[in-house]
């Protein structure tokens, strides 16, 4: 088995530098490019901390390593205000996250020569990825939206979070500490992840920051929906942990039913909570994602016609 190769990059969003991290099984080979998988983090921890986590005594928590070994060229980015990226006076809402991704794509294209990629977004990262897919459809081949929420109606986690809405509005940053990271893994159903994971995540994250931006929390509590399903034209997988208070199943099914591309999938993973990539059943989760990305190409004569119909509907204003 080849070694995992990695590299760091910096994207520029105006004068805000954005940290990017890439992993690949062996060094990239321009003659044999692998499909790019871009991982989009959520509200509370940065890209490498979540997607390339080292848990003491364990060697199987890195989503980046797993997908590098499955044949992908795996990238992630720290959004503005997170991890190793630059800070501003802003609160880094979803819309800014889309701008971060646009900046990140310049780097990916320069390094790989590729212009269309697989995307995975987790929690508010799923909202960023969905909004990005709507804004830049030519850049997204297939997208996985995990721990996603559409309208937020009836979502226990968001109802609880909204109690602090004034606090999220009052400040662009919110403090994070070890207890907070534990709460992420225990708020839905304790026992769906190993106890060492929140500590490892806290160890990784707290050496980078003591606070994170409030923009995505504010968006999720006060501004949903932030994306119209009819604007997402690529194939979509909605991935949901069985125990995830971020949304109701009804909310996600309604979103799924409106997705215009008829290459779409909704998977619920039993025994998983909100942060499924770091849960006990993460291998089941990875398996479903990999299967979705590796869907064989269509062979019927209607692909171009279908693409045209979807695009016409989007240009006509979607829902109308």
């Amino acid at each position: 088995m080849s070694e995992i190769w990695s590299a760091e990059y910096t994207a520029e969003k105006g004068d805000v530098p954005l940290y990017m991290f890439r992993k690949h099984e062996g060094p990239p080979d321009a003659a044999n490019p692998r499909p790019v998988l871009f991982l989009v983090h959520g509200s509370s921890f940065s890209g490498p901390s979540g997607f390339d986590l080292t848990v003491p005594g364990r060697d199987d928590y890195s989503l980046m390593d797993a997908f590098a070994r499955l044949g992908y060229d795996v990238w992630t980015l720290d959004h503005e205000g997170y991890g190793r990226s630059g800070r501003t006076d802003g609160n880094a809402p979803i819309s800014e996250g889309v701008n971060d991704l646009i900046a990140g794509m310049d780097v990916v294209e320069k390094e790989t020569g590729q212009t269309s990629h697989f995307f995975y977004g987790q929690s508010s990262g799923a909202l960023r990825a969905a909004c990005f897919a709507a804004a830049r459809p030519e850049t997204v081949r297939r997208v996985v939206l995990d721990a996603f929420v559409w309208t937020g109606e009836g979502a226990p986690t968001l109802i609880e979070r909204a109690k602090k809405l004034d606090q999220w509005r009052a400040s662009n940053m919110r403090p994070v500490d070890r207890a907070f990271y534990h709460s992420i893994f225990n708020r839905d159903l304790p026992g769906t992840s190993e106890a060492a994971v929140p500590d490892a995540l806290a160890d990784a994250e707290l050496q980078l920051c003591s606070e994170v931006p409030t923009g995505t929390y504010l968006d999720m509590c006060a501004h949903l929906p932030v994306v119209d399903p009819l604007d997402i034209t690529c194939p979509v997988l909605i991935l949901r942990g069985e125990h995830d208070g971020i949304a109701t199943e009804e909310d996600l099914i309604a979103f799924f039913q409106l997705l215009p591309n008829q290459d779409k999938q909704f998977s619920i993973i039993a025994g998983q909570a909100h942060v499924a990539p770091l849960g006990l059943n993460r291998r089941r989760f990875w398996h479903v994602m990999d299967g979705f990305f590796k869907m064989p190409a269509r062979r019927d004569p209607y692909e171009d016609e279908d693409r045209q119909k979807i695009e016409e509907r989007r240009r006509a204003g979607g829902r109308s």
Partner: protein
Amino acid sequence: MSEMWSSEYRAHKGDVGLHVWRKRIGAPNAGQADKPLLFLVHGSSFSGRSGFDLQVPGKPGYSMMEAFAEWGFDVWLMDHEGYGRSDWGEGAFAYVKEGVDDLKAAMEVIETATGHAKVSMYGGSSGALRAACFAAACPENVDRLALAAMVYTGQGSPTLAKRAEKLDEWRSSNKRAVDHAFFASIFNRDKPGTAEDEVAVALADSEAALCTHVPTGTYINMCAHLPLVEPEDVKCPTLLVRSEHDGIATDADVMEFWARLPNKDKQFTQMDGQSHAAALGLNRWRFWHVLKTFFAMPPRCDV
């Protein structure tokens, strides 16, 4: 690589002998299940081997059995009563509930041959209804269940509305004539061009060698007796595959069924560019890929 191995068996539902067919890579060791077991359940209009092990002249890659055998499965199917190489009891309509009895008889054969009788099960069209009813009746026999071209209540289904125009005819006889034109209609009724023309011909040739009529029971069930199974009664992990162009049900009807499935290990996949008989369509490899991924789900490791 080892050769494709096949064998036929006979299941017995009382006096009715039922054809059972098995394919896998390499000969099995009697009484041992050394590969995951996959059982394929056919629908209303053609037998198991014709549909799932079809040989299309000049066009390899149509046998779903062989594809899954190559992927490491021990693949089984049967011809239900009145179909293909199975017996047809006098006057039998071969309703879906009798199809469940057929499957129970087949499980005995599998258990004798492998020592196990818990399978991953796939059913298409009324085969999905048989498989879902079987999973509800015999949960101990079904590990994971994939249902394609499924219908729940039938409300708003164009195909069933059309079919119901002949309900009196289906009720008046337990036999329904099939011919080349009928088989061609299966592939063209939803979206012409989603299957190769040669497929309907090969399927018709295969079936014509076995029969001129098939039972009417599942047609009657689908026109007059839906729903036959409630989602709450299907307890195992379930995949529901819905083709974009399939008049057998509406999107809303099958989503309602899926949403109410109680096991939270479940998946709904909508597939573009496919119609009712997806397993024999141009995009069958996409369809098989989705099934394979679902059946190959790693085991749970939470408490």
